[in-house]
């Protein structure tokens, strides 16, 4: 990163306006060859918008971009690909109906006599994915694979496309440690080849592990650029939030759980989840830990009735209940914040307000609309309580940044005042500030006597709020950790144990 190397890409004065919001206000970004550059900022700071402007997915309203000293102005992502800028956008952006190989090579398929050669394409795909430790059949449609695999394919595609710059927008949000390691290995190789890499994430550990410099955005403006070797986490966090993050007391939650609320006996579904028993008491947070694909999401969906169980029974306050649909569950005052907020969570074109009251209204029934004043009061209260950043309650929720969407979804369920709340990856894509708030929120809810089931891939977080952790492996419960036993190390051990067995 010596001062005299010429930047690969330098953007100056990039601005982007949305109706009612200034997403980017004269942002500068400079990338040098062979550097990994972190782009940091709170939810809604404008990170995704910035890279969309850089790559031509959005038309920028002002500013100029220079690539290798030459002015470029990509008007489509295709154009930026031609310039050698490969990008992974925030939500997985691949085509589920095409095969893995076709996704990898879309737009630059190997040709033979002018025709696409499927055979060569698949051979190449196998080779490329092998480099990420992924051994799959590349002719299968992408939709048959889990989100994690899709994410890796998206990364592989972007890497293949990037001759000069690689941009990764929260690529690790749905990856496990091992995959993250694999990704970092690839990034280091690319760095050696002299590529400039933009890395967006909310995991500061990862930032300090892999990145050289960081540019921090706040409210659409650059508030600073730092050499990471010479700065600390607190410094960066301070820059991001504009305030200090109170260090939280790491007291273990006292064991004051109430009486048993729910009991599942031998509940399961063939081909999806092995039968398991689980009891949850009031004022208890049960954490679900496991590797990708271990069945955490399945457990959550099964308990919520989103995918009905085909065996076992459920008891609520010693009464047997039927859980065949989300509606049943909601009637019994359950709530579920799903993992994939884009497809299962938000209702994109409805306003933020309507999204917040949706579940409450659905429970109230078709013919008893919530009155307007109450709706506004509720929505405003939650926007304030969760610090959701928005231009207006009337704006469609899909215009919110990813993290703010997540908070709005939390608000939806809190508004129903549930007895039992299931959170599937509640902090995915959420910034450090909000992360702390959500953890505090979970503890607050528990103290009020709510029962929670939280699935998460972030072990530190699980350790922080769980009163009990259930470890899953291969869609089966393998062990349960209580009280003092709950620690990152023990969870990792419990997960890994299964791994060793499997290999043996």
């Amino acid at each position: 990163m010596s001062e005299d190397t010429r930047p690969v890409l330098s953007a100056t004065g990039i601005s982007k306006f949305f109706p009612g919001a200034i997403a980017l206000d004269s942002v500068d970004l400079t990338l040098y060859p062979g550097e990994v550059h972190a782009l940091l900022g709170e939810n809604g700071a404008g990170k995704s918008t910035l890279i969309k402007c850089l790559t031509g997915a959005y038309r920028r309203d002002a500013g100029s971009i220079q690539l290798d000293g030459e002015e470029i102005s990509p008007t489509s992502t295709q154009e930026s690909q031609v310039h050698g800028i490969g990008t992974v956008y925030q939500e997985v952006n691949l085509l589920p109906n095409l095969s893995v190989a076709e996704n990898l090579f879309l737009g630059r398929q190997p040709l033979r006599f002018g025709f696409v050669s499927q055979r060569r394409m698949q051979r190449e795909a196998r080779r490329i994915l092998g480099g990420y430790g992924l051994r799959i059949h590349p002719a299968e449609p992408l939709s048959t694979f889990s989100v994690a695999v899709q994410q890796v394919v998206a990364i592989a595609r972007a890497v293949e496309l990037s001759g000069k710059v690689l941009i990764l927008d929260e690529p690790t949000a749905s990856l496990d440690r091992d995959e993250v390691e694999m990704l970092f290995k690839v990034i280091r190789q690319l760095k050696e080849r002299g590529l400039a890499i933009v890395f967006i994430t909310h995991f500061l550990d990862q930032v300090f592990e892999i990145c050289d410099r960081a540019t921090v955005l706040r409210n659409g403006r650059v508030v600073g650029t730092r050499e990471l070797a010479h700065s600390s986490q607190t410094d960066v966090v301070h820059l991001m939030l504009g305030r200090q993050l109170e260090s939280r007391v790491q007291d273990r939650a006292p064991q004051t759980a109430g009486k048993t609320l729910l009991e599942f006996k031998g509940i399961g579904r063939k081909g999806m989840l092995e039968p398991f028993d689980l009891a949850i008491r009031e004022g208890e947070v049960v954490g679900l830990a496991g590797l990708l694909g271990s069945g955490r999401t399945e457990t959550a969906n099964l308990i919520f009735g989103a995918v009905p169980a085909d065996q076992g029974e459920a008891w609520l306050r010693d009464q047997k209940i039927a859980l065949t649909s989300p509606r049943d569950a909601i009637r019994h005052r359950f709530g579920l914040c799903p993992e994939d907020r884009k497809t299962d969570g938000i209702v994109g074109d409805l306003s933020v307000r309507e999204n917040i009251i949706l579940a409450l209204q659905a429970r109230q029934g078709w013919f008893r609309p919530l009155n307007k004043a109450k709706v506004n009061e509720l929505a405003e209260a939650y926007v304030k309580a969760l610090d959701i950043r928005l231009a207006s309650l009337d704006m469609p929720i899909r215009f919110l940044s990813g993290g703010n969407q997540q908070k709005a979804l939390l608000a939806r369920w809190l508004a129903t005042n549930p007895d039992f709340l299931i959170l599937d990856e509640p902090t995915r894509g959420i910034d450090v500030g909000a992360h702390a708030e959500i953890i505090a929120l979970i503890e607050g809810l528990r103290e009020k006597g709510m029962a929670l089931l939280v699935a998460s891939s972030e072990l530190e977080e699980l350790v922080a709020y769980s009163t009990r952790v259930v470890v899953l492996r291969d869609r089966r419960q393998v062990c349960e950790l209580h009280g003092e036993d709950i620690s990152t190390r023990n969870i990792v051990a419990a997960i890994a144990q299964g791994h060793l067995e499997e290999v043996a």
Partner: protein
Amino acid sequence: MTHGLQATLRRVAPQLMILAAVLLLNVIVFPDFFRIEFQNGRLFGNLVDVFNRGAPTALLCIGMTLVIATRGIDLSVGAVMAIAGATAASLVADGSGWVTALLGALAVGVLCGLWNGVLVAVLRIQPIVATLVLMVAGRGIAQLITEGTILTFVNPGLIHLGAGTVLGVPTPILIWIGLGALITLGVRRTALGMLVEAIGINESSSRLAGINSRVLLICVYLVTGFCAALAGVIVAADIKGADANNAGLWLELDAILAVVIGGNSLLGGRFSIVASLIGALIIQSVNSVILLSGLPPEFNLVIKALIIIAILVIQSPTVKHALYILRASAESAGVDTPAASASAPLAKSTETAR
């Protein structure tokens, strides 16, 4: 309340403007267009005709708007009209009273809606294919009832629904305005409107939020069947006979067109029944231009196509956006009002980026 009215007016403003333009076109080809007389116990005039003849399309587009809001489409409404008309006619022919006939026809329409709804919501067949089945078979069923003939009837009660008047106003006008108002209030004064929009935008999310999307979807198709049946009865009553071969033929396309001209997206979501109804009036006004112009019928379709294309282009998101920018920059070029200067940087910079 007034706030809601204002919002509605803002929503339908483009449609109203287009309607005004097409009506103006009518006046150009026929200067007496707006003259309304009271003649022979009924209002009599071209404008009355537009409202009266627009009734079937208007009725269809009430239901169609809801179906389209759920990201569906119903191609079978024309056929359902034929079935309902045939049912009503054959019931009065068998000696039933007009009330029985009407109820019977409506019941049959609802049944057709149920069939479509089950195909879409339970069997998960894509709406366009699911309703294609009834579109093809339905006319056959209607002909089965009438045995291919025009089933003429003389029951005055039934005829009154299509050709009669109430206080001088043709009954169909009252029926479609009444039903339109009823259903608009029905969906907007309850939570139904929002829930329908929610399942149209993202069904999976809606289901997880506890909306009974399956039943709601079926209900929407039931409403469409009901509206189609009512339209069928009116059309049959109008000519005092059930014409299974021609009643409602291709009218589903007009209804869909009306919904789109009403500014509703075929991709589901936000909807406005009032705007669709104005869309129906626009289509009928276009038909009226064609009839009044006196041009040879060979040109009917070309004229209709050109006017519709013009309307759609004006309404397209791209043109709307361009107009918005144009207006904003025109404002900023003018007097330096605070509002104008506030919107100026936005408009200008968007332009330079092009």
